């Protein structure tokens, strides 16, 4: 036991104390460090979203009076609801932003089951922690599956594609979908930012799911019951809510605005 307070004859375990016997900001060491880690992660995601804003503002916006009816073009930044308008199994139906909305709900819901797991942990209710952790893991996988579909659709493109003229050779050809250098939907930077921002977020979701599985395993084997508290669930919960929070911002700044 590292954090023990030794008096004359008795040894009292003091959960509340860091090594010096005080608990700065009235949270445990692990939770405070999780908060600061999340703060640093906030900076990374902010950098990506600020970059998106900078590049978007440096391109012309679509204006019906100037550009006519909307079509995919290099000349202006695309409107997200024209790009993300597909839903699995509903081929050819124009459903703008519906799929992203579903993804948002999945993530919010898995956030709720996470907070329910934390609440059950406070009550030392092991069976409920297991149940809600499992739901959270399922939500995480569902989100990742949706994102995989979204990416694959974005990469493969629409049926019609877009005619482009090669700047160097003058060749006219049709491109489908997007990669890091060519983009059917608009300027190449738009696709690059899509891959970087949603990809970086997806990586976070993935590591969150891995952590959730670990926590579920350790709950199921009774480690936290023996330890006497479920604080690990809270710490991983903070991370998982942060992932949800980032998606709220990505949803607004990438898809809605």
């Amino acid at each position, binding site marked *: 036991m590292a954090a023990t307070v030794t008096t004359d004859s008795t040894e009292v375990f003091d959960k509340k104390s860091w090594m010096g016997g005080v608990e700065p*900001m009235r949270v445990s060491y692990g939770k405070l460090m999780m908060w600061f880690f999340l703060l640093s992660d906030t900076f990374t995601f902010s950098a990506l979203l600020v*970059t998106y804003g*900078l*590049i978007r*503002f440096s391109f012309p916006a679509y204006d019906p009076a100037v550009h006519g009816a909307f079509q995919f073009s290099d000349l202006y930044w695309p*409107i997200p609801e024209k790009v993300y308008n597909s839903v699995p199994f509903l081929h050819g139906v124009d459903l703008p932003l519906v799929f992203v909305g579903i993804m948002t*709900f999945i993530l919010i819901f898995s956030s709720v089951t996470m907070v329910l797991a934390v609440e059950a942990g406070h009550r030392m209710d092991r069976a409920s922690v297991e149940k809600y952790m499992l739901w959270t893991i399922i939500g995480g996988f569902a989100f990742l599956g949706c994102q995989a579909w979204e990416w694959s659709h974005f990469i493969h493109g629409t049926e019609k594609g877009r005619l482009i003229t090669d700047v160097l050779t003058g060749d006219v050809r049709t491109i489908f979908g997007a990669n890091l250098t060519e983009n059917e939907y608009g300027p190449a930077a738009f696709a690059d930012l899509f891959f970087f921002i949603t990809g970086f977020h997806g990586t976070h979701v993935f590591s969150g799911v891995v952590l959730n599985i670990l926590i579920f395993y350790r709950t199921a084997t009774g480690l936290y019951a023996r330890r006497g508290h479920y604080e690990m669930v809270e710490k991983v919960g903070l991370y998982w809510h942060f992932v949800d929070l980032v998606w*709220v911002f990505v949803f607004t700044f990438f898809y809605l605005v």
Partner: protein
Amino acid sequence: MAGHNYTHDHEEVEIAPPQTKAIWKTFYILGAITALEFLIAFTIHTGPFKTSIFIGLTIVKAFYIVGEFMHLKHEVKSLIWAVLLPCMFVVWLLVALLIEGESIFMVR
């Protein structure tokens, strides 16, 4: 105590009833705001007004996620400010670089 199972020791503890009212309330608020955003996306014309509504609603959502789900609202003031203040400087960076982007557009 040959057949004694160690996990058995802990199951004697009484489990308190769940207190989940506030959690579900937060969920309904978040869901309602998302639905509202969805509605606004297709009813109001694109412009600064629409954008500011979206940003406002996003901040409300962030408040509920960070305040209730991440429990920050119930922490001590010093922790709240330790998290909030650096984020406020990010807004400054955002505004500065949006203006920068605008001037790149003008130069092009």
